[in-house]
């Protein structure tokens, strides 16, 4: 009897852990000549602890690659320098200020992000470098594929809101969705992107030196 009860409990637990699946597509309207970038899709309304490994944002060709990542609160981001010159990664965002100092090719610095928030990341030496880290309260977030399709698995049963966001989006778009245990739900999201310049100040709150000003490449 006890074995049966244990088996039932394990099965229920597994079903609960499996949750439902959200699939869909994000259709992006991009201005002519607009640069494409990652599209983050995430579910909000519940909290989960981070179990994923560190996320890596490369510094390569005076760019952060990728320039948008989604994290679960508690996850870390590693910033390896792949360029043959110094970079100084920093964030002026109040929710997670940091300054990694200047380090050379082959070296990596990392930071953890314990609280949800939207974190801007820049290089104090190269004003053209910018990235966004979106720290989320649960693990149900993915970067959409090149064709805009995505699959988010393991969503707990309930009514949640799904967001899609890119750095060049006018604003995030969202849709409410009911997720059943073991069920699959499908959604479509339409994201409008605009021409955006990621102008910013250096880590001292000053303009970059003359000659270093950001010049869009597109």
């Amino acid at each position, binding site marked *: 009897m006890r074995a049966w009860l244990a088996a039932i409990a394990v099965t229920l637990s597994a079903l609960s852990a499996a949750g439902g699946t959200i699939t869909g597509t994000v259709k992006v309207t991009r201005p002519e000549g607009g640069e494409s970038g990652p599209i983050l899709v995430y579910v*909000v309304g519940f909290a989960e602890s981070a179990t994923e490994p560190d996320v890596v944002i490369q510094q390569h060709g005076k760019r952060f690659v990728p320039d948008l990542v989604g994290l679960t609160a508690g996850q870390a981001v590693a910033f390896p320098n792949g360029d043959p010159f110094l970079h100084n990664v920093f964030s002026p965002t109040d929710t*997670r*200020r*940091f300054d990694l*100092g*200047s380090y050379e090719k082959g070296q990596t610095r990392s930071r953890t992000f314990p609280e949800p928030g939207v974190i801007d990341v820049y290089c104090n030496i190269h004003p053209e470098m910018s990235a966004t880290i979106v720290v989320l309260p649960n693990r149900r977030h993915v970067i959409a594929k090149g064709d805009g399709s995505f699959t988010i698995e393991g969503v707990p049963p309930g009514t949640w809101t799904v967001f899609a966001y890119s750095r060049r989006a006018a604003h995030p778009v969202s849709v409410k969705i009911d997720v059943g245990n073991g069920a699959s739900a499908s959604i479509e999201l339409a994201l409008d992107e605009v021409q955006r310049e990621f102008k910013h100040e250096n880590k001292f709150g*000053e303009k970059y030196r003359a000659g270093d000003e950001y010049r869009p490449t597109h």
Partner: protein
Amino acid sequence: MHRQRWISIVIVLVALAPAASAGRTPFAWSYGTEVNPERMVESETWISEENKKGDARADETLIWWGPTVGITSHLEGAIPIEFSRNADTATPGAMHLQLWGGELRYRFNSPDPIEAGPVTALLRVAAFRMAEQRSGVRSEADFIVAAEHGRFLASVDLGMVSEHTPDATSLEFRPSVGVSVLAVDQLRLGVEAYSELNIQGDSVSWVVVGPSASWTHGRFWLATALGEGIVNIHTAPRVKFGIQF
């Protein structure tokens, strides 16, 4: 800004985090536990007065200047020079170069204030050549522990200073303690106590306590304290500032 407002609607934002690491100190007498980010260079200066000290009512003004550099994310070095002007009831005032040397400051914790946690510690060691006593050596060491809780910060600095010449060796214990509260963005107000206690030699022991303030603005930081004499001294104001490059 528009983008952040939208996203903040759907995720929980948190209270302000401490500022990024730098080489600044939150108190004027105590050393801090922050170090410069790697490869960051800073010009650091402090100026202090020790007024009407001991039975001789001696007045002393000290000016310390040194470039500091972040050697690693935990270690910074400095090459300081120190000038002093001394005068007492029997001696007219004269300004002179007193010391030059080198020092290292090692932060035990992560340079990141969030990853470091609320309690941080730093060890400072320094060796100086005494300009007027060519065979003299001065050595200094400080162990600093700081604890931060919300807007409140407390710091204890256990400092030792020893001067050694062929004729004499002196030893002083220089403890200091400070508490402060973050009043507004980047401005701290508090109280700091500092003392120089003679263990060996003929120096005068003295103790001050008084209000302190510190402020950071971009690449500039400042810490100041107005020490009121408790033992063997009238006042001991001090200002410390740095500019990062």
